[in-house]
């Protein structure tokens, strides 16, 4: 039984930004990196399913697209308990369809029983890679899943899809399938540094990228968004701010 989990190392921008010379991206000096929050839930879910079914030779394989830097995020997944990791070597920023095209051959090769992606990444927030990947793999799919009950022998799973307003859609999906995992589905376990260091001993397989075709978009220009014209700054210390807030509230609630 094999579950492939596609993970992304996301970029975190602080409160200052400078752009690259061609103004198409943020200067990397201003970025910190982390494992995408949704992907830690996805990895945890895969591990729980594997632990629940408890068979011999079951594997959780994490796959990612990026340069060597992203291996830091992948090692966190290995430290949590994933068995293997594969990186598609690719260093340019990529749209979700391109990423899906890069992931597809690797996932295909693994012949997984389930493929998990996070619903979205916290930096790009496209919420598209998973669904696009499912199409390229020819897999049935459900996006935005908050609960999974999988019966491998019956070849189907009952999942809960989370719609707007908290409405839940109970869905039956044929497996193998691809599911995009939503936050709150579980509590991701802590990967302690000892485990992460030991994961550093594990080889991460690096594969060259497949043909990607034309990207789905190109960034023409990246810029700081214009501030909402009404964002009036309340100045002063906490006491002044609180006073102003009280005034505003009283006035608006009249």
């Amino acid at each position, binding site marked *: 039984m094999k579950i492939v989990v596609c993970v992304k190392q996301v970029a975190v921008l602080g409160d200052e930004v400078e752009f690259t010379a061609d103004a198409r991206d943020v200067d990397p000096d201003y970025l910190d990196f982390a494992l995408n929050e949704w992907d830690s839930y996805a990895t945890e879910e895969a591990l729980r399913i594997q632990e629940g079914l408890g068979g011999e030779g079951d594997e959780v394989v994490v796959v990612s697209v990026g340069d060597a830097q992203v291996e830091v995020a992948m090692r966190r997944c290995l430290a949590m308990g994933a068995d293997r990791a594969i990186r598609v070597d690719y260093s340019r920023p990529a749209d979700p369809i391109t990423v899906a095209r890069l992931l597809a051959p690797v996932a295909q090769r693994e012949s997984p029983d389930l493929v998990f992606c996070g619903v979205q990444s916290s930096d790009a927030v496209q919420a598209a*890679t998973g669904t696009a990947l499912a*199409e390229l793999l020819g897999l049935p799919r459900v996006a935005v899943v908050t609960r999974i009950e999988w019966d491998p022998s019956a070849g189907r799973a009952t999942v809960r899809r989370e719609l707007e307003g908290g409405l839940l859609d109970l869905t039956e999906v044929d497996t193998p399938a691809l599911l995009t995992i939503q936050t709150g589905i579980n509590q991701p376990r802590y990967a302690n540094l000892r485990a992460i260091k030991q994961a550093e001993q594990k080889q991460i397989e690096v594969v060259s990228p497949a043909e990607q075709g034309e990207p789905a978009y190109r960034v023409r220009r990246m810029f700081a968004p214009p501030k909402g014209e009404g964002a009036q700054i309340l100045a002063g210390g906490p006491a002044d701010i609180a006073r102003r807030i009280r005034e505003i509230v009283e006035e608006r609630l009249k």
Partner: protein
Amino acid sequence: MNGTLVVAEHLRGELRELTRELVTAAQQLSGPVTVAVIARDPSVFDVSFQGVDEIVNLPLGQEEFENDVYQTALEALIADRQPQAVLLGFTVNSMGYGPAVAAKLALGFASDVHGLAVEGEAVIATRSFYGGKVDAELEFPAERPVLLLVRPTAFAPAADGGNASATEFTVELPSARARHLEFEEAATGDVDITTADFLLSVGRGIGDKEAIPQFEQLADKLGAVLSVSRPLVDAGWMPNARQVGQSGKTVKPKVYLALGISGAVQHLAGMKTSETIIAVNTDPEAAIFNVAHFGAVADLFDVAAELEKLS
């Protein structure tokens, strides 16, 4: 390629306001605007808004959304119409099939688009990157349609009063590999945050679930109702009924006071139409400040303590 194909967004028999917004979005592009209604009985939805040139009704054999069915339906429509652009809403349903269509047909693609323009023949879309802190203009492959998922509330809703006529379009639809079984309502909580005039909303910034009683107390003193952003519900500290955001409730109170909320896209979607938004966050670049009317870069606990004193 001609015009823009808008796919109407509906859920459980109700047409979503988002559909009107998509029509407005379509008007930023060139060519006729066609609204496709994919539903069991498309005729129950009136989509003849101003700006709609044509309506296509595509009946299904089923009531509820199933992504394989909608995918085939849209692919057929695209093949038939050859539009320049296809607009879906950035909704959970559309996430389930939009990107699949784009991958299958190698279309241009972007989601959470909040700006649209056309330059000559080319569609230019604007969306945010890096957690909503920067914006970018995107260009798409020439000679291919582009499929976009549009951010709710980014465009004004189109008004009634159009006079488009509807035609029917039938397609042989597959049996779905992911099948709807039944709905489960979100648990109703003790309080309906959508009816409150004044919401005090807290996010990850409060740090610890132990801090919640303190904010419940503050809300009480201020005469507000306490609501939260998604991470607090994920962590199990508050019920979903208190959540403001796309997967929670959409609220439009007179005053929305956000403490320690960064302003993730799906949260903003749930509150940005509030009459007055006041945000307090230590990060001056937090996306919430883009929608707030008043902002303070300060520690939320300090401000909360002062508010408590004033009450």
